[in-house]
């Protein structure tokens, strides 16, 4: 038994924000209340900490199978635990692609062996994510996937998207789309704007994303399916999602910490800043902050995308897209959203825990009898992120050396301490 004493329990699902003790027995929450006394329990002094329902990351890349020199399920899960995440959703763009139940089962076996955080795989929409025919979605669902996506690329055609959304509706799975009309640019490596023109780097206009979001929203309407827009990065995309929600469509979206923190003015020739979608203009970034504050955005997701150093340490236009993100996500959210006064703790926890859970159609609340998945964090803890100290096998973070206020202090998964600061 584990007794978390004197923490500030913040749970949007139960509208709780109070100093309470939490008793964990086995894999579940046994009791929740003021001044619990359980002599047999191991005590954790949580005073000064927030006790929240366990964080869920809807979007990450664990690279296993196929690119274990960049990350493995174990190292990725370890980095996730250090970032306060109790459950993570790896995208299917591994080698081989997670487009059938045996790959799904392999991922889950490796996750069980690592035994750190819950791994909820996302399966491919199409076979090989090639955008031609549907993958074996129901078999993957029975094996344990929680959503489908051809992430890295959008679902290739409107026709395939329609089929996939209709089918996924019958399976009650959300479809996560990486929205990008790549016919609008060739070889673009950053957001198009004054900065890309100055640097002489090929840019993709913001419309690259929103054109595809517009298509997807209309297919969602046509099919009645659940659409989740991955790593949304522009004001226009957000407007389309807001509009879809207003009309009652099953449309949700996530925003990454790097998209709500960085702008294209931060981009130079340092390939650690190269990511897809690219970091946006200041106006777009400000719109994302607003959407995070006003409830339009459902979740913060990391899009943790490790690349081994040798592959990333090349000319900007030759470097792969992506940055690691598990360990800096909460600290960046505290910096940009909480300490800046844009949102309170309840909304913060919603963005990391109950929001993502709702996208997946699952309940996540801090109550007696519920699974003991908890994230304990401090909003004040001073620390500096050092990429070389990361638990990830990769180092590609633009936030290396950044000083933060606030950090995950303990990650509890099914009653077990997966990380303690």
């Amino acid at each position, binding site marked *: 038994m584990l007794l978390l004493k004197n923490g500030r329990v913040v749970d949007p699902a139960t509208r709780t924000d109070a100093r309470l003790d939490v008793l964990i027995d086995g894999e579940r929450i046994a009791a929740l209340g003021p001044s619990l006394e359980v002599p047999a329990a191991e005590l954790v002094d949580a005073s000064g900490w927030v006790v929240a329902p366990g964080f869920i990351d809807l979007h990450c890349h664990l690279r296993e199978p196929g690119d274990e020199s960049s990350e493995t399920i174990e190292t990725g899960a370890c980095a996730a635990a250090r970032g306060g995440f109790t459950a993570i959703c790896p995208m299917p763009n591994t080698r081989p692609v997670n487009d059938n139940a045996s790959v799904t089962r392999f991922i889950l076996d490796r996750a069980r062996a690592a035994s750190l955080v819950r791994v909820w795989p996302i399966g491919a929409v199409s076979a090989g994510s090639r955008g031609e025919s549907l993958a074996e979605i129901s078999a993957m669902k029975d094996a344990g996937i929680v959503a489908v996506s051809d992430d890295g690329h959008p679902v290739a055609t409107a026709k395939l998207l329609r089929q996939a959304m209709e089918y996924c509706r019958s399976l009650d799975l959300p479809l996560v789309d990486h929205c990008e009309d790549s016919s609008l640019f060739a070889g673009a490596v950053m957001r198009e704007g004054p900065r890309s*023109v*100055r*640097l*002489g780097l090929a840019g993709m206009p913001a419309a690259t994303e929103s054109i595809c979001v517009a298509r997807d929203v209309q297919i969602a309407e046509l099919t009645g399916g659940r659409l989740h827009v991955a790593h949304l990065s522009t004001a226009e995309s957000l407007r389309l999602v807001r509009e879809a929600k207003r009309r009652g469509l099953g449309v949700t979206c996530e925003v990454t910490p790097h998209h709500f923190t960085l702008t294209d003015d931060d981009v*130079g*020739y340092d390939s650690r800043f190269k990511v897809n979608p690219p970091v946006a203009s200041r106006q777009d970034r400000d719109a994302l902050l607003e959407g995070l504050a006003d409830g339009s955005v459902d979740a913060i997701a990391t899009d943790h995308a490790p690349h081994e150093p040798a592959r990333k*340490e090349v000319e*900007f*236009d030759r470097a792969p897209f992506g940055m690691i993100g598990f360990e800096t996500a909460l600290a960046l959210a505290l910096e940009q959203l909480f300490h800046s006064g844009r949102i309170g703790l309840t909304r913060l926890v919603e963005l990391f825990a109950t929001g993502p859970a709702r996208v997946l159609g699952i309940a996540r609340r801090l109550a007696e009898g519920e699974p003991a998945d908890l994230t304990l964090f401090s909003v004040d803890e001073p620390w500096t992120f050092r990429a070389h100290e990361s638990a990830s096998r990769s180092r590609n973070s633009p936030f290396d050396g950044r000083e933060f206020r606030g950090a995950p202090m303990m990650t509890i998964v099914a009653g077990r301490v997966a990380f303690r600061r």
Partner: protein
Amino acid sequence: MIERFRHLLAIEPLSAAQIAFLLDEARPFQQMQTYPLKKLATLRGKSVVLAFFEPSTRTRISFTAAAGRLGADTLGLQAESSSLKKGESLADTIHTLEAMKPDGIVIRHSSSGAAEFVAERVRVPVINAGDGLHEHPTQALLDALTIRDRRGSLDGLAITILGDIVHSRVARSDIHLLSKFGARITLCGPAMWLPRELDTLAPGVRRTTRIDEALEGAEAVMALRVQEERLHEPGLPRDEYIRQYQLSRARLARACPGALVLHPGPMIRGLEIEPAVADGPQSCVLEQVTNGIAVRMALLYLLIGGTGSLEDLSHASA
């Protein structure tokens, strides 16, 4: 004591004073090009790596001549035979070249930012001989030297740059350089190669898609090379470009009398420029080539010669 200038990676971070200093330093080398014996021993015993990861004829030969006339040896690396083709990374190639103990590295590369990438990883001075679409600083210096010689000064120059502006590293470097001297710079070309973001590059820049308007009152006109591959990507039919944007004698008449005509080369006669203009009395094209050697000699002398006269350039290594 301010930190010493080590590299020439771009024009953008330089000040007008620093640029003027560089141009002044080029003057004696310019005169030298007219001597029957053009070889100095100033850099004897020094060696320069010419790391050309992208095919180049004129810039490469110009740097080779510049180094040779200063007495330095050049070690070449050519795109076609480079280890890059065998899959070696730029970082590894450059470390290998540095291990051969050169006194400086001149780099030409198809990736924007490649010169900066190299400069961050070596201890010797790096000169950018063109990086992707970003900058081609020595071209801008030789253009400035040519204009200054003919016009007497760069101050307040009215210049028109014609062609594929957005894909031109020459245009970027020239815009940054001339803007620092208060030039009024008119950019002109097909709309898709003339995005509005160009206005933000430097003060004094305006854009127009109408060539007659662009040439009105110009004291200097630079026609950029039109890369055939850009015409196909999909760009503009070749004849459409000629019809709308070729620098012809008739069009040049709209510019100031005696307006200078520049071209960074290689020039495609009959495409971006009419042969009569390229060969006409206003053309500075061959002077540009000669001045290129002088400017590059000055740079090699300053950066590799270690003369200690570089304080004025101290901020340029950004």
